[in-house]
């Protein structure tokens, strides 16, 4: 496959994305994603998992387009909350708060939102171009992937996802393992044996993806927040004309936007690195090269433009490993992957060639979705600001109900709703003990695939474990895993020797 072919396919993709029935679902996704994402405490993850059941009733292509729409809708909604309220409901926005909120206090909140929109649009466009260049290459490489290679790269993705999130890498690996175990529950595809079912017939089909996400990210979060954390409503006023940044502000943010996009693109190609870490690196870079670093944290527009560009570029490029290798970069991608699997689409090297409408339609829909985001947000900003003022104490009970009915609707099963409560308890326990919870989802989605490929690889090699380092591509991934582990051990030993001042900017992030 050549570049020209890729360009040709992209045009085909635009045809798919712009088909009225598909476009309708994209608009719906962006709108609803934005609507829910703007509400305090509702991140992209909660939003997507709440609306996941909707995808069961519509065809695969519009379903995935809608989910992608929900994703950037809620991501942008999260940026609104971060800038106007100082409330990061999606972890990557923690950085956006640092300078976005001070801008609101200075009365430039609208401009910050405008720049965020520009950055998102620009970064997404670059991301699409990168995808056009990379996907033909990737298809070629991916066809050399057998179960052995898939297994090793999954291992790398899981390890990276576990160790590069917030806090203790050890706890991250533990949570990934826990997620893998949750994936084991149910009927074993190879032997038909029931595992960890404990005679509960409903569990034979395994744990419900929506239930696990809503329990961990919804209910558990409510449990940890209620009556303990003051969630204040915003009284910021933003009107349509405030959204336009001044020429000086635009000039100031162009270079940071470019740099942020670059950072995001580089990290996007690495499986397992979440978008949060990307935003922190982008922010740190801006502060380092700024002429006057003291402006940061007090409303520097560069501090909004660069991280926002980086997270959007990262997200875009992240779809490449997610779709073509089946290795999601973070929990949101894992959720999208789960939706694909539910739809009967096996992510992997064959996806680009077997489902070109899905892959290229999705790529084109990023661009379409970002245009929609701009079109919808300029007139709607007043509505979003009003929504931000809904008090938390009214919001979360309504959310509890929507989670219940959302999970119920996927299979008309009340048992699945019970799972939400169960994972709410599990999530709250882990949160109380300061375990990062998003690796659980990563493990849960990848678990069955990892096990299947692991078993297949070893059947093919007649039980010879060395096969993972005998095959060159696999050896590279295993080498990267070893490097990652060594780096963690070295940094731990250093920390123990020098206990003071180890809190770098990278540890600030949430999972």
């Amino acid at each position, binding site marked *: 496959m050549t570049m020209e072919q890729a360009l040709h396919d992209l045009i085909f993709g635009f045809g798919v994305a712009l088909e009225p029935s598909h476009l309708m679902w994209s608009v719906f996704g962006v709108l609803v994603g934005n609507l829910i994402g703007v509400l305090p405490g509702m991140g992209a993850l909660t939003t997507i998992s709440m609306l996941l059941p909707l995808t069961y009733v519509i065809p695969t292509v519009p379903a995935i387009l809608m989910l992608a729409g929900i994703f950037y809708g809620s991501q942008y909604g999260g940026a609104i909350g971060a800038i106007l309220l100082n409330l990061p409901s999606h972890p990557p926005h923690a950085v956006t708060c640092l300078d976005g909120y001070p801008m609101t206090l200075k009365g430039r909140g609208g401009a910050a939102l405008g720049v965020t929109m520009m950055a998102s649009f620009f970064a997404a466009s670059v991301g699409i171009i990168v995808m056009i260049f990379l996907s033909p290459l990737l298809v070629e490489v991916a066809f050399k992937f057998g179960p052995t290679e898939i297994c090793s790269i999954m291992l790398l993705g899981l390890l990276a996802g576990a160790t590069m999130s917030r806090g203790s890498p050890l706890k991250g690996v533990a949570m990934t393992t826990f997620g893998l175990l949750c994936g084991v529950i149910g009927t074993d595809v190879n032997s038909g044996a029931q595992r960890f079912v404990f005679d509960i017939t409903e569990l034979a089909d395994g744990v419900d993806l929506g239930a696990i996400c809503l329990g961990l990210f919804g209910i558990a979060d409510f449990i940890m927040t209620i009556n303990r954390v003051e969630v204040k409503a915003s009284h910021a006023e933003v009107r349509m004309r405030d959204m336009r940044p001044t020429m000086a502000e635009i000039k100031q943010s162009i270079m940071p936007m470019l740099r942020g996009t670059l950072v995001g693109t580089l990290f996007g190609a690495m499986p397992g690195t979440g978008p949060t870490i990307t935003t922190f690196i982008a922010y740190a870079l801006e502060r380092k090269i700024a002429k006057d670093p003291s402006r940061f944290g007090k409303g520097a527009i560069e501090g909004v433009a660069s991280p926002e560009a980086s997270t959007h570029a990262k997200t875009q490029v992240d779809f490449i490993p997610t779709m073509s290798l089946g290795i999601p970069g973070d929990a949101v991608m894992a959720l999208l992957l789960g939706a694909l699997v539910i739809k009967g689409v096996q992510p992997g090297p064959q996806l680009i060639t077997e489902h070109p409408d899905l892959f290229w339609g999705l790529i084109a829909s990023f661009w379409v979705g970002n245009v929609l985001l701009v079109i919808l947000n300029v007139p709607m900003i007043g509505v979003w600001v009003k929504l931000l003022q809904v008090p938390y104490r009214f919001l*979360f009970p309504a959310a509890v109900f929507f989670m219940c009915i959302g999970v119920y609707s996927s299979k008309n099963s009340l048992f699945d709703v019970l799972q939400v409560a169960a994972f709410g308890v599990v999530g709250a326990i882990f949160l109380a003990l300061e375990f990062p919870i998003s690796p659980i989802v990563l493990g849960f989605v990848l678990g069955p695939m990892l096990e299947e490929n692991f078993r297949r690889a070893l059947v093919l090699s007649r039980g010879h474990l060395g096969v993972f380092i005998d095959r060159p591509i696999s050896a590279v991934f295993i080498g990267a895993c070893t490097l990652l582990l060594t780096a963690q051990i070295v940094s731990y030993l250093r920390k123990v020797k020098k206990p003071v001042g180890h809190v770098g900017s990278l540890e600030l992030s949430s999972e």
Partner: protein
Amino acid sequence: MQKRTPYTKDRLGAALLMLMGIGVVAEGQSYNIGNLTRMGPGYFPVVLGIILMAIGAMLLVTSWKEKGDEAPEIPDLRGSVLILLGVVSFVVLGHYGGLVPATFAATAISAMGDRKNSWRDAVVLGAGMTVTSALLFHWALQMQFPLFAWGE
């Protein structure tokens, strides 16, 4: 500000991981484990269980060096119990009552979890959500969920 306690987050977490690991390995024993060439259904979970135990042990060892380790943050009892009760009531009343009572209970009970909400707030919120739910899910989306049901 730091609470001094031997039961810190890391140590409790380590204990939890080891317990889980032991449980998984014990349960995994009852499935066919097999060998590397012919892995049975028990192989993968048992390996994961062993990993959990190992991480638990490592976390326990490192917890002695950890300076910032504190006691776990305990969530608000009333809030957490009522939120969970809200979800459970949705399940129970969904079966023995139907969509209307289930919606009302899930919303109103979890609303009572917030100490700033009065009885009236909870009832009004519950009633509002019930109307929304009936209109949106029963009539508009035609969901398979009777408004009132008496169980089987």
